[in-house]
């Protein structure tokens, strides 16, 4: 019964795919509206980030890691994708209040569009990342075949959180601000800026419980260590799908109250 309803929701999303596409395209187009570089910022911004982090960490703060800029850059982009998608999805329903009060469309489109828009931006970032890897002598390898799998799992996990937080923020507006702190803390608890080996032995299991560690380590495995990701990735992939179903079920249950709450 509920499964059927959730499937209907997804069918409706599929019917409105053109709207989803247009929404994503609009977000990407208007993101850098009015700036001189415009769409180029999609590439310039990760490039500048690379410069800042590599200067900071290879000159000022020395990390016991080879080619630290690459070590960092190959995971930072995916972290940024995750964190900005979660952050902006939390306010998307409230921000779209004007639209959803006036026109009917499947509300799932909104969080999906945020996460998809972020994904596309991330893929553009990879266009900068891969040449940078080559520049440092890290050549594409057979393990790159894992890349679509990792990206897909990250997408599912991010979307699960997007459904959850976009719905919760409608009823509880503070969440948006709480999230920005949580995401900052989460970054430092995830081995993005440092290698797992730096974590004291007794806390390592805790990091194993952090879903984003699994994602980040997988990216680093294929880009930096030239090896296949840990099998925990697939376990996590299944969990992520489960989480997506649950959080979408919650979203679907409360979405009819959105219009009245905002």
């Amino acid at each position, binding site marked *: 019964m509920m499964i059927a309803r959730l499937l209907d929701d997804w069918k409706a999303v599929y019917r409105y795919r*053109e709207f989803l596409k247009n929404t994503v395209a609009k977000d990407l187009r*208007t993101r850098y509206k009015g700036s001189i570089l415009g769409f180029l910022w999609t590439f310039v911004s990760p490039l500048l980030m690379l410069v800042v982090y590599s200067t900071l960490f290879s000159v000022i703060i020395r990390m016991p890691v080879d080619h630290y800029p690459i070590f960092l850059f190959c995971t930072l982009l995916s972290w940024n994708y995750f964190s900005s998608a979660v952050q902006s999805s939390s306010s998307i329903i409230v921000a779209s209040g*004007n639209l959803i009060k*006036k026109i*009917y469309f499947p509300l799932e489109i909104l969080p999906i569009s945020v996460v998809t828009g972020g994904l596309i931006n991330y893929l553009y970032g990879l266009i900068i990342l891969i040449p940078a890897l080559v520049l440092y002598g890290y050549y594409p390898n057979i393990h790159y075949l894992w890349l679509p799998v990792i990206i897909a799992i990250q997408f599912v996990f991010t979307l699960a959180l997007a459904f959850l937080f976009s719905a919760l923020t409608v009823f509880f507006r503070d969440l948006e601000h709480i999230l920005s702190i949580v995401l900052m803390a989460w970054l430092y608890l995830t081995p993005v800026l440092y290698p797992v080996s730096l974590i004291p032995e007794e806390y390592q299991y805790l990091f194993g419980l952090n879903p984003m560690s699994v994602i980040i380590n997988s990216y680093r495995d294929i880009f930096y260590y030239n090896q296949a990701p840990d099998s925990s990735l697939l376990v996590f992939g299944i969990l992520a799908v489960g989480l997506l179903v649950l959080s979408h079920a919650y979203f679907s249950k409360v979405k009819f109250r959105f219009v009245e709450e905002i």
Partner: protein
Amino acid sequence: MRVTELRETAIEIKNLWKKYKIYQDKPATLKERFLFRTRGVAQEKWVLKDVSLSIPKGKMVGFIGRNGSGKSTLLKVMTGILRPDKGEISVEGKVSSLIELGAGFHMDFTGRENIYMNASIFGLTRREIDRRLESIIQFSELGNYIDNPVRTYSSGMFMRLAFSIAINVDPDILLIDEILAVGDNAFQKKCISQIEALKQQGKTIVLVSHDNGVMERLCDEIYWMDNAVMIKHGNPHEIIQEYLDFLTTSEEQRLQSEARQKEESAVPVERSAESTVENQGLDQTTEQKRWGNNAVVIQETSIINPLGENRFIFQKGQPIDIEIIYKVNQPDVQRPVFGIGIFKMDGTLCYGSNTYIDKVPVTLHETGKVVCRIESLSLVQGDYYVNVACHHEDGTPYDYITRALTFRIHSKEDDIGIAYIPHKWII
């Protein structure tokens, strides 16, 4: 077409209830949530109470009712924006709603880009939009402007584009909420004929409008809602007539109670040679002025219908009496004249006359009543005010009151101007 198909319903609503929560001061932040565990003072207001209806496929149905009667909420329930609290609703077919035109338009995008954007909100695929693009552009009459950013459009152009998209998405059911006031007259006519064409094609159309003429002409059936309740439905002409009568009665009551309040709250104004009384009851622009030497004082004025009732609203062509009650202050008032003038609210004099012009001799008593009987109040629909005066034949005012009375004319016809000139058409 099979016979059974004719009986199919497009929209079926059974015992539908919908309430809104009205928060006095809604705690949506953490602090407030902890401080006041209950979520603020939520008042519940039922905006739809036990509404049932069935709209057959291919019919055009109108909803009438005063503001806040629940029409728009009902339409939002039909589109799926709102979900009922109780009851059932089933909608067969693709719905396009013209509830809010241009919602989701992006100002920096061109008209053409907005067509793609907006049409996709109605659930169209790229190919479907491609196919309709030309007819949308043509219908909007935007021509070359279609490739300019929407922010450069005039509001008329904007609405035309929005309407063209909404009407061209080829819905099975079209919900239209009070948007026929789009663009200029010519475009409005085009919209209405487009709606008629859709009706011919067998589309189901639901219309909410305050334009009763259009409603009566277009709709197969009218539903009348008041105060969240479906009052009745049926033949457009009959329902609209009944609705208008109802409006007249309730407005009458409102105006009377307002007038009563005004009387109660009015501070007695010491009459001076020229005193100004702010009169906010009927119209903010109303500013009563009064002057004269008080030899004769007009104590009371009223407009009376043939049943002897004091009224504010009259039907066109109805007989009325304008009554003036006076009191004489000086015993030797010479050659008094009583006069009236009827003005439109904008100050246009519609008609004026007095006892001197009409050669009616006036004899005064200590107090008395003068009646100006109008056999047929042949004014067109609208609001009017009346000046009354008592003055000397040479014009010296005894008591002159502007805007002493206000009244409203209701009419079934939409003729315009000032007065009704009896006429007929010979063709």
